[in-house]
């Protein structure tokens, strides 16, 4: 199943199951979604529930909050995470805080879907990863879907959660053919151990999962070690249990993220590991992250600005030599 089809299936089934589920955003209706995620939904559910909005992100999210207050379960689609900054006030100051500042009286069952990350030469204003910002906001749930199975189950769960959820997708994943499995009692807040290993834990999420999985066989062969790979899935809350179990076993951790290194999401994860698992560590943690530059247009520069399988191998090699692995 294509990744985008898994998302479509989740939305379609949710809309069929519950009339209060609506989707709104730029081009979600008649056009079918800029990444074809909402394809076919307009014809099926009509303009009242599949809502074409103006290019006004602040209002897309603001309107969705109002709909949620009125009892609907809106799914707001923001064309890319870069544009969500226009809606930041609505997401952070309103959606995330209403429950708390009303002493628990308000409930905002809202899902905000948006793709982020580096695609192919979309340049600085269409290539960012802002999970670090959203993960820092109490009141928000932040999920990052790297694969069809998680995307389907987690999106369905998000739609029916009674809190605002930032649902992160990745532009390069939409057309990817992936394995798909239906799972009962799926827990969207749990990290996935993608591959078990003994000597090194690699934490990652979203598209970097695939870069890591390409790098791992090379690392294992070259260093003669076995690597455990964990896809974090849920960024807020963070599944520290799975992380901790793994690090207690391997004693070493590397985090791979596409986000910029400074203040990136990985910084938080590594900080928690340092606080909670310091005495388990046999080497300083390593972050392999995007460079601290706006994403460039030129393909060579673009690839130089983010981790690639080759760079992951090279950095782990260098790190292992310096740290006695």
């Amino acid at each position, binding site marked *: 199943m294509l990744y985008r089809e898994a998302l479509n299936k989740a939305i379609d089934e949710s809309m069929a199951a519950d009339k209060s589920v609506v989707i709104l955003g730029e081009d979600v209706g008649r056009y079918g979604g800029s990444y074809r995620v909402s394809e076919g939904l307009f014809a099926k559910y009509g303009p*009242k*529930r599949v*809502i074409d*909005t*103006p290019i*006004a992100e*602040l*209002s897309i*999210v*603001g*309107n*969705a*909050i*109002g*709909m*949620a*207050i*009125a*009892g*609907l379960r*809106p799914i707001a689609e923001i064309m890319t995470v870069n544009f969500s900054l226009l809606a930041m*006030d*609505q997401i952070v*100051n*309103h959606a995330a805080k*209403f*429950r*708390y*500042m*009303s*002493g*628990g*009286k*308000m*409930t905002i069952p809202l899902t905000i879907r948006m793709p982020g990350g580096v695609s192919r030469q979309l340049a600085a204003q269409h290539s960012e990863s802002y999970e670090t910002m959203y993960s820092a906001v*109490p*009141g928000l*749930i932040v999920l990052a879907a790297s694969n069809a199975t998680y995307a389907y189950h987690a999106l369905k769960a998000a739609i029916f*959660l*009674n*809190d605002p959820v930032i649902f992160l997708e990745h532009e390069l994943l939409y057309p990817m053919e992936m394995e798909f499995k239906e799972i009962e009692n799926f827990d969207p*807040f749990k990290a996935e151990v993608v591959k078990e290993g003994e000597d090194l834990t690699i934490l990652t999420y979203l598209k970097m999962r695939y870069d890591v999985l390409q790098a791992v066989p090379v690392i294992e062969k070259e260093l003669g070690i076995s690597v455990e790979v964990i896809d974090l899935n849920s960024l*807020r*809350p*963070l599944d520290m249990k799975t992380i901790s179990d793994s690090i207690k076993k391997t004693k070493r951790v590397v985090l791979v993220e596409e986000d910029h290194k400074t203040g990136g999401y990985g910084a938080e994860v590594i900080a928690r590991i340092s606080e909670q698992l310091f005495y388990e560590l046999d080497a300083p943690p390593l972050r392999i992250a995007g460079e601290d530059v706006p994403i460039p247009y030129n393909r060579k520069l673009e690839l130089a600005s983010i981790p690639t399988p080759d760079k992951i191998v090279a950095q782990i090699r260098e790190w292992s030599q310096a740290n006695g692995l």
Partner: protein
Amino acid sequence: MNSARVKTFYYLMKLGREFELAAKEQYMQGNIAGFLHLDIGQEACSVGTMQAFDKGDVFTHYREHVLAIARGMDPKLIMAELFGKVTGVSKGKGGSMHLFEPKLDFYGGDAIVAGHLPIATGCAYARKIEGEMAGVFAIFGDGATNAGAFFESLNIAAAWKLPIIFFCENNYYAIGTRIGWVSPFEELYHKARHYMPSKRIDGMDVCEVYQVVMEAKEHIEEGLGPYFIEAETYRYEGHSMSDNGKYRSEEEMKIFKSRDPIENLKKEALKLGIVEPEYFEETDKKVAKEIEEAVEFAANSPEPDLSELYENVYCKECTNVVP
């Protein structure tokens, strides 16, 4: 105007003003903290609108104590909220600027200027597709009409013919900035009139406010789309407690105080003989007692327990997994 309605107007406006005065006093004594924005002088807008718009959803800015009282919120619960007590309407977690009561369809003090307008618009959309034409009432100040969220909301509400009343309290000042310095005109209904029927009214006259909101209500209920009202009004106090309001002239203040909504209603009612003089005396006493009780209730209420710190960040289901 019938006698009963005038009495209600007077009672609620007086209750509102005395509430604000008590809040001011308590703030100065250190019992209320943070930002406190008083509605003194603008009571006709708060009371007139809420009396007319008695169904539907209300989305408001942060100068909302009197609006909440007029909507039916117990002054005790508001005062307790101002005191930061657990008995407050938002359990002491919201304070003066964030009074929420879904039971009254009152969605509260939003402290981001114009931030609540897209939300009100979205709510109106949901109500419309549900066939609930009582619609939505959104109240905001002159400052909000310069923000992008304001124009986005006018555009969407008009494009989709949503049942929503936009009610602008034009008191001419956004903190210390006169509206005319930052807007091409001071009559703000011009900003909306290409989108929807728009009117400028005397916001110091509770009867006029009431009547125009009634008209607007009929308009949205008939499915004719949104309606814009600009009410000229004036706050006697500074923007918040730390503002002395000295950017305004004594002369200007005197003119508006001569149009005081409470005093003028009383004068007019006595002149027309529709309300007996004793009513005012009795009401004043009753109000004083109610406010005294509210302060007492707030003062004697307990502080929230420390365990409240992590309560209400997420729903029950999510609380179990966060952080």
